[in-house]
């Protein structure tokens, strides 16, 4: 959801970085998108392309690393792998799973010149 405004955030982050690190051109952008975040990678690619046209990141390669979801069960305390945000603990069946990782969306790094 909101891949367009998130792609605009990516561009904003790139532009902030360009001002701080003094580069003119972005060759590739690496995003870490959590499995449990609300981003659809294909929609993100489309929006990234659209948003970066005419910018220093035009034609940059977009690499998306999908980070796995993990949580802890508040019922039995076991660590659980999570494919989706809401589910049941495979050990005790509790619905109280607290997400520990995999719901972030971030710009990891840029290859620039």
């Amino acid at each position, binding site marked *: 959801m909101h891949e367009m405004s998130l792609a605009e955030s990516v561009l904003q982050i790139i532009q902030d970085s360009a001002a701080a690190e003094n580069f003119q*051109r972005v*060759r590739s952008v690496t995003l870490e998108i959590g499995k449990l975040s609300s981003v659809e990678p294909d929609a993100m*690619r489309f929006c990234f392309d*659209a948003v970066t046209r005419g910018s220093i990141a035009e034609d940059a390669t977009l690499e998306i690393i999908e980070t796995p979801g993990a949580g802890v069960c508040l019922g039995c305390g076991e660590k659980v792998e999570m494919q989706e*945000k809401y589910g049941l603990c495979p050990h005790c069946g509790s619905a109280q799973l607290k997400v520990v990782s995999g719901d972030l969306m*971030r710009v990891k790094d840029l290859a620039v010149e």
Partner: protein
Amino acid sequence: MCTTCGCGGHDALIGGKRPSKAKASGPLSFRAPQNATPQHHHAPADTVQSRIVQVERDLLAKNDSLATHNRVFFAANNMLALNLVSSPGSGKTTLLVRTLEMLKNKQSIAVIEGDQQTENDAERIRATGIPAIQINTGKGCHLDASMIGHALDQLTLDKGSLLFIENVGNLVCPAAFDLGEAAKVVVLSVTEGEDKPLKYPDMFSAARLMLLNKCDLLPYLTFDVELAIANARRVNPNIEIIQLSATSGVGMEEWLNWIGREQVHLKI
């Protein structure tokens, strides 16, 4: 770019005004790509050295930092800000109008209204004598922290005021956008399904209080109150729940008492 908060500008109208230059955009159509391989762009060969810049910044960082800015403003002025969310038609505005009528002689209040179009809700609020700013999001589906920041600039707020933000009627998107509020209050009406919390878990997880509205209609419906409460607690075991009716007045005292307790907590 907006010089106050650095936002890139958006198409929202805040109190009838555009806060900064809107970005030009052409028509876009989205079709999912035919294959799943990453797109490769063949950049022209050149001899300039590439280097890696570590960024590690969250995509929602901008909204989060503006929300923090709002939150700091509220704290500095001892203001309780509540973000009212729900699907369209749950009775948020009627509930807010009833709340204002009961509270307006007791304290200073202001309202920020969010809708795609029209000033209708802000006008209903102003008819009670309470100041209201209408944000029209245009194509947008949720309020964000930068819109709230701009709206606050147009309101004269006393220290210790109560601020209600009535979000765009939408049970999906507003859940992800922190406005700087003290709490999200989700309004669910008994004319909706008992499984709403299960279908829209992000919103019910994000809310601290659920107001179950239109309870005066229960005799005419097959709505199972206990099931709705159980479903809400399944996605959010700590959610507080108040049953009320903005039209008959039942439960309204309990809601006002909840607000009062929240305001006391602010002072601690």
